[in-house]
């Protein structure tokens, strides 16, 4: 540096001890921006132990893997760090899964846009089926051996298994419902019937979780979905109207299912603690 002025050792030592008055400290601070020699002099009076410790922590931090996009978004939203990690490790909260949901619903909306007459009814029916099934599928692959990369860790974690399940299932449900609702708004001639999938999907999801206390989540989901499809198909064949499966009667059945499943889940939630369906 070109400057010829330098702080003497006493000034530097007084600054390091916090004993230098404000005015001289301020001018020294400005000088330190440009003067290597005074910085070195100051380093000599700085305790080395905390600096070495901090450096070790800096190295640790830059070696640690950076959290992914989902996790960083959750952290920015104020989600607790451990919950954010658990949610980010949920397969059905990954970007690929969410993207798949959007694509599936977009196809249904696209089909509805090109349809009219009886075709429009069929397209609406297909949209409702897809929207109702997505949350169930998401929850089914959200946990359990084979699909959950953190399954082994989860069984050993100090967090109760049912709590982990609820956090994940709620997050999956919430994202699916948001995506499904946006798709419903995009349906041609948006109408209340476009969100008739909401109760069925809740019922299917909770029933899956309830049966999941006996069966593997995948098996439980398959059983619940197949039963629903069979019953709905029977109703549709009888009335010759696809929307019967989402009509008032069906909605009441869904509410009953939701309540019953919630009760089963509350009573048998310990099963998730012991390991799922094994």
């Amino acid at each position, binding site marked *: 540096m070109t400057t010829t002025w330098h702080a003497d050792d006493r000034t530097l030592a007084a600054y*390091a001890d916090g004993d230098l008055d404000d005015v001289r400290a301020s001018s020294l601070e400005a000088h330190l*921006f440009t003067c290597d020699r005074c910085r070195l002099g*100051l380093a000599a009076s*700085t305790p080395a132990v*905390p600096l070495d410790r901090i450096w070790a922590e800096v190295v640790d931090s830059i070696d640690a893997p950076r959290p992914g996009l989902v996790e960083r978004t959750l952290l920015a939203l104020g989600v607790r760090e451990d919950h954010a990690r658990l949610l980010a490790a949920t397969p059905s909260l990954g970007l690929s899964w969410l993207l798949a949901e959007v694509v599936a619903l977009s196809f249904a909306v696209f089909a509805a846009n090109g349809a009219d007459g009886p075709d429009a009814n069929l397209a609406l029916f297909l949209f409702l089926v897809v929207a109702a099934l997505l949350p169930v599928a998401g929850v089914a692959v959200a946990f359990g051996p084979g699909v959950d990369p953190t399954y082994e860790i989860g069984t050993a974690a100090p967090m109760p298994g049912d709590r982990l399940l609820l956090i994940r299932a709620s997050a999956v449900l919430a994202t699916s419902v948001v995506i499904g609702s946006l798709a419903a708004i995009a349906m041609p001639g948006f109408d209340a019937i476009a969100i008739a999938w909401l109760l069925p999907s809740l019922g299917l999801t909770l029933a899956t979780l309830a049966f999941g206390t006996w069966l593997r989540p995948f098996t439980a989901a398959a059983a619940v979905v197949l039963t629903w499809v069979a019953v709905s198909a029977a109703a549709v064949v009888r009335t010759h109207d696809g929307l019967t499966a989402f009509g008032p009667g069906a909605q009441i059945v869904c509410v009953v299912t939701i309540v019953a499943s919630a009760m089963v889940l509350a009573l048998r939630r310990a099963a998730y603690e012991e390991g799922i369906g094994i």
Partner: protein
Amino acid sequence: MTVRTDGDDELLRAVAQGDRNALEALYRRHSPWLMLRLSRRCADPGLVEEVVQDTFVAVWRGAGRYRGAGEVPAWIWGIGIRRMIDGLRRRPAGIPRATAEGALMVSAEDEVLVGVEHGDLGAALGRLSPELRAVVQATVLDGLTTKEAATLLGIPQGTVKTRAARARRELREALA
């Protein structure tokens, strides 16, 4: 470790390429004054250490964004002081924060001595009350916004503004 004599700009360019030795060289060069300067503004050594660590992690990740505008130490200081203000904002009141009415408080005797020792601006600054001087230091010398200075000093924004105005008036009179 071998001491690197490259300039800050070269080191920072190397850091942007992922050169960890260059980061260590920057750290050895700039962490001592950064820690001391932060310590003068915060009485909690734990927070200061955390901020120094965060700052150099930020230097590692943000080295590519440095465009050579201004000096590297000033850039590092800008990161550090803002991290510290974020840290102060996160913690509940009651934990020792800034030094406005605390560690920096100088005895009346020292006040007089400072006034005698320095001429002109130095004397004028030295005769300001510690409260006013802390505001001048935070806003003018550290380059903080009113809001940031308020967080650093643990006083309301309005107080920062009135104290800054009073300090300006006193300095103008002293230098007239």
